[in-house]
């Protein structure tokens, strides 16, 4: 039995059947796995927030290691005292603030609606941390992260992640040797909220100078680095009123 695969009707029928089968398969897979996937994403967010405030399992100067997924939910409740949402002048407490989609809020702001800004107050060893989520653009796609500051506006930790930066170059923003450089830097310069720039020029590669609002850039990742600088600057300017209140208390 030979089918004439050159006929137009056959071609169209084949395409239609293929689309239905593939579509059904993918739809089934997506709905079957979506609960598990969103659970993973939720835990990851908690891990990232805790990482920024120094609750992690890093050892020496090795690689990034988060607190385990089995312990993270409990640790999140222990260390994060308040989850706040800033909305204009209003501050509300919201236990699901960490699930706020920054991308959605960004487009809400563009559409003229009030933007909800989540912020987390953590406490570890009797010290308070204010953790701000960030979102920006890298070279290829979105970059995001969290920065934790104390009440003197000194960075206590950061976490960066990216969707599609170049492996070996821009993707290294999530490596410890880059993120650890931010610790101890001030986001203030003469009382102005300037953030921290990722700077080329190599004037301080060992990053000993902590008052210059600069960290050493990654070679070959100029655009990603500029994206990180812009992201920090923009997030800090959004949260400036909140940070000023913290600093003055």
């Amino acid at each position, binding site marked *: 039995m030979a089918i004439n*695969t050159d006929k137009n009707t056959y071609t169209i029928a084949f*395409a239609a059947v293929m689309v239905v089968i593939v579509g059904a398969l*993918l739809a089934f897979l997506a709905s079957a796995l979506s609960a*598990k996937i969103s659970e993973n994403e939720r835990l990851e967010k908690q891990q990232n927030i805790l990482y920024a405030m120094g609750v992690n399992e890093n050892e020496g100067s090795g690689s990034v290691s988060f607190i385990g997924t089995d312990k993270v939910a409990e640790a999140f409740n222990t260390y994060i005292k308040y989850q706040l949402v800033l909305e204009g002048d209003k501050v509300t407490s919201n236990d699901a603030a960490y699930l706020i989609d920054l991308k959605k809020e960004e487009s809400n702001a563009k559409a003229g609606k009030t933007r909800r800004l989540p912020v987390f107050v953590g406490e570890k060893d009797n010290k308070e941390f204010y953790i701000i989520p960030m979102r920006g653009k890298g070279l290829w796609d979105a970059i995001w992260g969290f920065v934790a500051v104390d009440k003197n506006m000194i960075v206590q930790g950061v976490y960066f992640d990216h969707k599609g930066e170049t492996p*070996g170059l821009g993707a290294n923003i999530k490596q410890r040797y880059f993120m650890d450089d931010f610790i101890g830097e001030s986001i203030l310069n003469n009382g102005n909220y300037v953030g921290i720039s990722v700077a080329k020029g190599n004037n301080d590669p060992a990053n000993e100078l902590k008052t210059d609002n600069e960290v050493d850039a990654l*070679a*070959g990742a100029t655009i990603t680095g500029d994206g990180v600088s812009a992201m920090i600057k923009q997030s800090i300017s959004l949260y400036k009123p909140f940070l000023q209140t913290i600093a003055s208390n």
Partner: protein
Amino acid sequence: MGILSKKDAALILDPLADNNPITIQVLGICSALAITAELEASIVMAVSVLFVMGMGNVVISLMRNIIPSKIRIIVQLVVVATLVIVVDQVLKAFAYELSKTLSVFVGLIITNCIIMGRFEAFALANGPKRSFLDGIGNAAGYGFILVVIGFFRELLGSGTLLGIKVLGDPIEKTGLYAFGYENNGFMLLSPMALIVVGIIIWVQRSRNPALIEEN
């Protein structure tokens, strides 16, 4: 070779050497440039392509008699894309960490010309078993070159292998760096991947002059 006949074994072994998709057919160069700055990324890419190509070749081969020739390229694209998305989703649910490493490659796998090339040149004309071997062989040949390039680029560019500082610490000036050795940052940029590919091609052709094309 036991279970494999000589002809079948050649399907796997040829692409590893004298019919390598990268160095001889010069396919798949784009991804070889893009992701070989680190050895780990090269390995992940090699394994992903191995899976997608083995499976894809089998699927296309099973459908080879019913695929309308007018839309066969689209059908091939759909098969690759579906496989990649299935792998991506399953990993996201059950191996979240790994899926984050892999997410960058999803787009690159779909557009890898070796995969489309093998579907078109081999799977459309051969049975599933031989197609599977051909897919595995070509993916292994591709992956092997990727790992070699990744090895040299990470070693010379960052002084590390799989993220481990094998040459000492460049900032603390220990190991090799104590003698004034410096990492070659140029190795991290894509052009150097092409030069490494060029060197591999050179070495391979000078060892086997039969591979040199006549002008």
